[in-house]
């Protein structure tokens, strides 16, 4: 066990303005950045606002930016930094700030509402669902998401372009569309809802230029780009840009076979 004094810069302020404040604080063996923030609260800055909850990387509350990189405070060990390094903590920079490290993540909840929910298949009651493991593997990967919104924060489409927030759902919710489109029993199509077309038309899939930052920051190691976004792009191509598929669907419709 050894402790040392580390230098921190923490952004403090609110919507009116603010700036980086310097702190010197004790660090002990095995601690994570959230421990240090708690120590600051308990000893130097009792009103330092921060969101956190489980402190075990399962709830996705303590998202912030450490040395400019979107991360979970509770899953960033102090040992990854040099002892003489000044560690900078700021709130997420893609969302409006409320106070100190707390931002208004309402954007994400709004986008969540815009994705039509799972449509249960007609004629199957509770207890009658049969799904094979290989068919649920894909959507299960996406359901590991802890909604920390780090991917939403890092995605340059909205981070660097506030005006795109209206048209773009962000990686988390495009992944949600993919999850539902890959759900083995989702009956959206039967109700006339084409999730592939809406991914592009309503959730802004075309804005994604697959630069993979969402995948890089994901604390759950979900392969958002390769397994959700690109497959959705390909599915959109099926619907809109593939003459073979288009021709095939015409013929099939004519023969009535399916």
């Amino acid at each position, binding site marked *: 066990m050894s402790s040392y004094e580390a230098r921190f810069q923490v952004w403090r302020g609110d919507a009116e303005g603010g700036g980086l404040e310097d702190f010197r604080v004790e660090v002990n063996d095995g*601690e994570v950045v959230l421990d240090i923030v708690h120590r600051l609260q308990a000893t130097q800055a009792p*009103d330092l*606002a921060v969101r956190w*909850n489980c402190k075990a*990387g399962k*709830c996705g509350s303590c998202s912030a930016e450490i040395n400019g990189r979107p991360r979970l405070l509770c899953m960033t060990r102090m040992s990854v930094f040099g002892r003489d390094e000044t560690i900078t903590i700021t709130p997420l920079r893609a969302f409006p700030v409320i106070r100190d490290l707390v931002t208004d993540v309402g954007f994400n*909840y709004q986008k969540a*509402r815009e994705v039509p*929910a*799972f449509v249960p298949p007609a004629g199957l009651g509770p207890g009658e669902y049969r799904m094979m493991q290989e068919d649920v593997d894909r959507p299960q990967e996406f359901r590991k998401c802890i909604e920390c919104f780090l991917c939403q924060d890092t995605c340059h489409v909205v981070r660097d372009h506030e005006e795109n927030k209206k048209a773009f759902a962000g990686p988390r919710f495009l992944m949600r569309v993919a999850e539902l489109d890959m759900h083995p029993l989702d009956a959206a199509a039967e109700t006339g809802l084409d999730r592939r077309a809406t991914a592009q038309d309503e959730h802004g899939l075309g804005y994604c230029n697959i630069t993979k930052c969402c995948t890089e920051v994901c604390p759950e190691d979900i392969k958002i780009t390769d397994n959700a976004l690109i497959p959705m792009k390909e599915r959109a191509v099926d619907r809109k840009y593939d003459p073979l598929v288009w021709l095939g669907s015409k013929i099939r419709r004519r023969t009535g076979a399916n």
Partner: protein
Amino acid sequence: MSVVDRQEWDVVVVGAGGAGLRAAIEARERGARTAVICKSLFGKAHTVMAEGGIAAAMANVNEHDTWQVHFRDTMRGGKFLNQWRMAELHAQEAPDRVWELETWGALFDRTKDGKISQRNFGGHEYPRLAHVGDRTGLELIRTLQQKIVALQQEDYRATGDYESRLKVFQECTVTRILKDGERSEMGVPPAGGRGRVSGVFAYERETGRFFVLKAPAVVIATGGIGKSFKVTSNSWEYTGDGHALALLAGAPLLNMEFVQFHPTGMVWPPSVKGILVTESVRGDGGVLRNSDGKRFMFDYIPDVFKEKYAESEEEGDRWYDDPDRNRRPPELLPRDEVARAINAEVKAGRGSPHGGVFLDVSTRMPAEVIRRRLPSMYHQFKELADVDITAEPMEVGPTCHYVMGGIAVDSDTAAARGVPGLYAAGEVAGGMHGSNRLGGNSLSDLLVFGRRAGLHAAEHAAASADDRPRVSDEQVDAAAAEALGPFSAGGGETAGDREAAGGGQGVGGPPENPYTLHQELQQTMNDLVGIIRREQEMEQALKKLAELRGRARRAGVEGHRQFNPGWHLALDLRNMLLVSECVARAALERTESRGGHTREDHPTMDRAWRNVNLLCALARPADELAEADPARGRIALTRETTEPIRPDLLALFEKEELVKYLAEEELYE
């Protein structure tokens, strides 16, 4: 002062974990306009921490499983102190609650024939836990959250407003349940238990703004109390808010002495001490060893379980593949037994370097299988402790995990006793789990009784439609003044606030740092009312709690009301102190060891205590000044004899087994 924003709702649900969301869904589907209030962001509730699974006798993996077997396991696990009707309803309804989740989009792991897969767990006779890897709680929360969104989308199509019938007030804290027909002596049950629920008083964490939700029915689903203990698997939200709200509203708490210490929490590094290591590690083959390399659990099988558990390592190992002809390994004993055994090993000097014991899967399964079946455990140890669980054992020790005690409720309706319109479900409600909860029974409890609470709250609200209870300005003002207290102690935000808070409450002494008080409280509860309890220590704890109570009134905060964590903690302290006193008093009173209550000075289970419930209520009018006398506590304890177990349910057990639990006169009735 009374410019506090007020809104009318039919049902208000406090808490947005599994029970709260399930209650809200039910209430909304029954036509009640429903508001949910939660301290965190929507979808972050402590339920996400649940790993192992949801216990439900669906018989997908072992066809012999039935609700009766599940009921039996639950009663055994709870050492027959369970409110048996709850255990019965729970076992009967759990499968429907799980299946219903699938129709809302949940994706559980599957069996070969495409059904929901079920896994083994401590205390369950058959593989019974529906699961998703080791992140079942997350799946549950996300499914319920998405169902709420689905209902809101429905409402949007009908009314043009997502929140017209179901609204989530996130990052808001309720500080008082409001009641009709009461004057300024808030929180005091008037004679005869009249005084209907009329709403809640809350503040928005972001702005510090106060508001009142008026409603004839309130469901409390706030979870547990673990943050009163130092080593805990619980998150910051678990400050016993619901327990305290109910107490203050005049509803009694039941059997608060029973606190479950999960046997396997992380012990190193210090900053993660207490974080849970899921029981599935043992369910899937992990074993416990002491520093001599011995599988010590074989030495700790209690008499009541002797016939059910393997006597040799060989037999235990065979059980994983052939459960019908072998008995299960003792690592899968109920949690209280395992926690005590670990505690004893460490005390006897056979612990691991950081004061735990070894939990090993690395020698039991190929690395590939471990990574697939226990992905978040692999991740958790890799990231937080730099331990590769596929190559080396984990170090684990007991951690405060769950409170079996809670608000005393009616088994069928989840209605809190003595306060019309108040309901409770989930961990905050007592009775269901008796003296010890089985793993996996928590998530099913949330769903079964969450739904029941929502259902009956909605019905109660509908019945009160023509005669809605009133919210008095006096109550609202008093609640606001109470909430502003910490500012006056600490210097205050504005002169107006100070005045509103009653000009400093007239309590002498320097302001106290709420963080320091919280740390002292946690240390006290951990050391003196922890896993092994002694009379003297608990008396000492009560003294310390009285001292802390006095100092807590001087807990002061700096800054202003906008997202001020110091202020939030100062307010939560009231709840933690009340609840801690309940735990300590009840634990002192119960002179036996049973389930989650272990007395060193009364080490055995006493059949005479089997049918005794301990009820905590507020001692006397909550007159803040009179209460300054630390010698007198705020909690009065009463004993109550439980209702006899229904004969057809008793008949599910062998006589020889019942003899070990039930008193003579209960057996021959």
